[in-house]
């Protein structure tokens, strides 16, 4: 795009933007605070009935038989589906990318076929005229199981004689491929230089094992949808997800339908954090609707959300770092085993790729094992795979700093990745802000404050790739000169505001005169889902280009009216001016819009792009804690998140992302974990015992926004949503370790665990 250079020069020359960098209230704010906004469970259709899912309470079992007869006879029951009602999908049907999407596994995860693989696995679904009837009918469905031993941890799953979840699973990425079936789905390896050899040059080596537990994204809104299949086979789905096109593609695949027969209308979304990049209810609701001829609504309970959706992998990591006495890193190793849950596909490879990315290392070896266990299938969660890897690496860096007697930020500054550094995962970094976040962290008042007794300070850095991908935008100029900006990207973190601000900047009109909206699958061209911190970057780029397209259209209209060449029309502050002569009175966007009918019809702009050039994000966090030595209770006293965001389009929402990511990471570090019984039943199926932090647990999360513009975006945007969850696990662990004088390498650092650690050391 020709304008890119100009834009960037504007950023670097610190030319003041008019709209970008301001923080107006979100366009959808009033609807949300007044309760008018429609979320997944808010939709109602004429003749609608209600669906409930029958779930397995066994972690691992063969389904011997399912008898639905009694339930079908119940008054009010309109449809019942089981795995047999879904089309068979071939095991080879998968999309291979950084993370493999297997439609065979996806289909089995949506509804079990011959085996159940986790507590909460869907086995059947019932639709009835009321939720109550549906629930009672669900209880009448008779399922006969042959219970199998549950495999709950990576350690147990990797044992030689462990029960095998999926017969025929042979570890991919091994040479030669093993002959025996196992629970290890794949092995990933990442190499730079020769780590084994380079460790010989190290003066100091730190090495330790780390563990982390399964955690859930903890979005407030449970999964919900309404599906309606009409008599002619056309389907409409209203649902809360991170991508209406994702829902359409997956449902089409799982229900063997043509995508053009499915329309997906996105609702507002009450949090996702990656967990709503999959389908759970939609295919069930669709089949129930097809069978009953009625719209079917399905809403999960919190218990279902925790048992059957979301979590991200717990697992084990061993990190080893070698350094010279002066702190120069010479070699590093990371070996990790991540729980995939019931089906292959943990983000262990992404963990391998990200762990050492903040550092300039010539010799790195990372090995990752993707291991299936009888837990729900892992879903994406903010920078998937990176937090646990960073926990191990950043703890090791801290231990190294302690061993060498070097300030932990100084150690990181000395070894920070900069422009031109060869990242262990393959790329040579373009312009990045890793070093800037470290320097700014060191300069904060927080980092230089004294600590009291039983208090400790920890720091940690983190990296996330961020992605681009396909985005579409339409900019439609209304007859009064106001503008509608339509995209296909669900607004999960305030992106409507960012879209409106970028459009305002290009169009030169007030933010309030722009209405950004998230369109359904039939009103805007295909877009990838909201994820990978890509929307403000990629969809933003599409909006900028679409707005420029609209500006060009309006310049053309003005040129036509004035009968001049389009080159003679300048666009500034929402006004077209003729450069050549001042005999033509400048025209405002409203004036041009009002006469659109006479100049060629409605005015609009569009852009459909596959955005390249996503800018990598780096963050450094500082955490102070106080540990009660008699109870093991951890109070977070102070917390500062420093992050390179490229350019903050809407600084308040950027801060919100930084704070939210930090708090989720703090929860992960301190109290969140899936607690299973011996037999694999989830014990903490609500927010009472699945302990995300409450507001009063947290101090103000201070933020320092660093702006090193991304050359790949017209306004310098980097993604901001994911990297803030990468450093907290390490930052909190390092703080707690310093407070108690013992290295904590096992998450979560819940009070019983800390007290046991203190007591064991006494």
């Amino acid at each position, binding site marked *: 795009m020709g304008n890119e250079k100009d834009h960037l020069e504007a950023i670097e020359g610190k030319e003041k933007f008019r709209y970008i960098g301001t923080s107006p209230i979100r366009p959808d704010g009033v609807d949300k605070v007044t309760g008018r906004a429609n979320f997944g469970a808010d939709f109602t259709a004429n003749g609608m009935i209600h669906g409930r899912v029958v779930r397995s309470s066994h972690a691992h079992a063969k389904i011997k038989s399912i008898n639905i007869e009694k339930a079908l006879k119940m008054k009010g029951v309109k449809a019942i589906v089981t795995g047999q009602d879904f089309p068979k999908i071939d095991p080879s049907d998968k999309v291979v990318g950084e993370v493999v999407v297997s439609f065979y596994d996806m289909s089995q995860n949506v509804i079990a076929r011959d085996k159940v693989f986790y507590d909460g696995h869907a086995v059947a679904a019932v639709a009835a005229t009321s939720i109550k009837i549906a629930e009672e009918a669900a209880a009448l469905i008779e399922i006969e199981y042959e219970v199998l031993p549950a495999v709950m941890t990576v350690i147990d799953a990797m044992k030689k004689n462990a029960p095998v979840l999926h017969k025929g699973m042979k570890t991919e990425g091994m040479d030669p491929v093993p002959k025996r079936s196992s629970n290890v789905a794949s092995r990933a390896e990442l190499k730079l230089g020769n780590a084994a050899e380079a460790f010989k040059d190290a003066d100091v080596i730190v090495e330790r094992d780390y563990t982390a537990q399964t955690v859930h994204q903890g979005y407030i809104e449970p999964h919900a949808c309404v599906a309606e299949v009409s008599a002619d086979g056309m389907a409409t789905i209203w649902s809360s997800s991170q991508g209406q096109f994702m829902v359409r593609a997956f449902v089409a695949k799982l229900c063997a339908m043509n995508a053009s027969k499915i329309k997906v209308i996105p609702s507002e979304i009450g949090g996702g954090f990656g967990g709503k990049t999959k389908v759970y209810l939609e295919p069930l609701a669709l089949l129930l609707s097809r069978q009953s001829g009625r719209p079917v609504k399905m809403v999960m309970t919190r218990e279902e959300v925790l048992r059957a959706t979301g979590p991200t992998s717990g697992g084990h990591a061993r990190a080893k770092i070698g350094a010279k006495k002066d702190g120069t890193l010479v070699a590093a190793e990371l070996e990790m085993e991540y729980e995939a849950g019931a089906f292959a596909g943990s983000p262990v490879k992404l963990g391998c790729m990200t762990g050492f990315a903040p550092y300039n290392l010539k010799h790195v070896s990372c090995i990752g094992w993707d291991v299936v266990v009888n837990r729900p299938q892992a879903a994406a969660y903010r920078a998937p795979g990176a937090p646990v890897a960073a926990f191990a690496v950043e703890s090791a860096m801290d231990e190294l700093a302690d061993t060498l007697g070097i300030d932990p930020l100084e150690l990181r500054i000395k070894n920070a990745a900069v422009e031109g550094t060869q990242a262990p995962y393959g790329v040579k970094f373009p312009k990045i802000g890793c070093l800037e976040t470290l320097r700014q962290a060191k300069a904060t008042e927080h980092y230089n404050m004294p600590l009291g007794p039983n208090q400790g300070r920890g720091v940690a850095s983190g990296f996330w790739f961020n992605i681009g991908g396909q985005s579409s935008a339409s900019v439609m100029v209304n007859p009064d000169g106001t503008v509608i900006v339509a995209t296909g990207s669900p607004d999960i973190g305030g992106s409507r505001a960012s879209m409106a601000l970028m459009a305002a900047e290009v169009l030169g009109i007030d933010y309030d005169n722009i209405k950004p909206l998230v369109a359904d699958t039939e009103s805007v061209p295909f877009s990838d889902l909201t994820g990978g911190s890509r929307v403000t970057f990629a969809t933003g780029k599409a909006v900028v280009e679409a707005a420029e397209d609209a500006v060009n259209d309006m310049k053309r209209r003005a040129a036509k009216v004035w009968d001049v060449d389009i080159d003679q029309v300048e666009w500034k502050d929402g006004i077209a001016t003729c450069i050549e002569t001042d005999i033509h009175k400048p025209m405002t966007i409203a004036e041009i819009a009002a006469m659109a009918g006479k100049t060629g019809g409605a005015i609009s702009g569009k852009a459909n792009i596959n955005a390249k050039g996503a800018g990598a994000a780096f963050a450094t966090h500082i955490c102070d804690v106080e540990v009660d030595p*008699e*109870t*093991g209770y951890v109070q977070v006293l102070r917390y500062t998140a420093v992050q390179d965001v490229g350019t903050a389009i809407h600084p308040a929402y950027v801060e919100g992302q930084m704070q939210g990511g930090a708090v989720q990471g703090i929860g992960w570090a301190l109290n969140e974990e899936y607690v299973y019984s011996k037999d694999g039943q989830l014990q903490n199926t609500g927010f009472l015992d699945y302990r995300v932090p409450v507001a009063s647990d947290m101090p103000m999360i201070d933020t320092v926004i660093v702006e090193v513009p991304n050359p790949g975006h017209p306004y310098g945007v980097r993604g901001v949503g994911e990297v803030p969850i990468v450093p907290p696990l390490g930052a909190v662990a390092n703080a707690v370790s310093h407070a108690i004088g013992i290295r904590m390498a096992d998450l979560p650092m819940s009070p019983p665990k800390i007290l*046991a650690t203190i007591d064991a050391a006494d």
Partner: protein
Amino acid sequence: MANLDYSSPSSVKEVVKILTTAKGKAKVMAGGTDLLVQLRAGRLKASTIVDVKNISELRTIKKEKNGFTIGAAVSGAELGAHKAVNKAWPGVVEGLELIGSTQIQGRASLGGNLCNGSPAADGVPGMIAAGATCLIAGPKGTRTVPVEKIVVSPGRTSLKSGEFLVSFFLPNRPKKSGDAYLRFIPRTEMDIAVVGVGVSLTLDKKGMCTDARVSLGAVAPTALLVKNCANALIGTNIDEDALNALSEAASSACNPIDDKRGTIKYRTKVAGVLARRATVIALKRARKN
């Protein structure tokens, strides 16, 4: 399909009548903050709900000659705003006030907290330590029972068919008395006690402890009244030795379980820690009074 009957009587007599004549299982509801959640989750089945919130006797705090009568359905917010009860029994009030959020505080009651039968109920150890008694109404009239005799096992009470809890009685305090309640949770609020400790004590003019009651929550199937803890304090100036003895007595009285909220080892140790801390607070309050 099972139906649920709901009634909202305005007198104690009516409640007893409904409870004795109801078909199936009848449950008494005050704030409903436990009951409704359990019904919804399917953990509890009931065919009749008797809402007692509209009976004035159950919603009133009354200063009597010899103490306070507190209606069983008085909410945490109401109790928290009552100056005289706060002054006399801050430990009882702080126990109830720890339950749930601000919204829940408008509904949750001492009576509900006790009759729900949870070993971890925050309102209960403070009342046991205070020596509070319950007025129970039933088909045979009324009877008075100490708080510690109500819950017999998790979720079960000693109330007989047709009986329900009308009010609590908290006695007047001698001078130099103080009480306190402390609980441990991994968060700052919105959580359930892993350990709870209620302490009430009285000092003489010289500062010697003449009377004490210590109650532990969440460390046994029911809240405990621990005599050995009281004995560790009575007759001492509550010095370091006494506190150590108290702490040990508290830990050895524990009979907890390992569960998602804490381990046996953890609960046992923290019971001793909190017993000491709660005693120090109660002592401070007693010295001021």
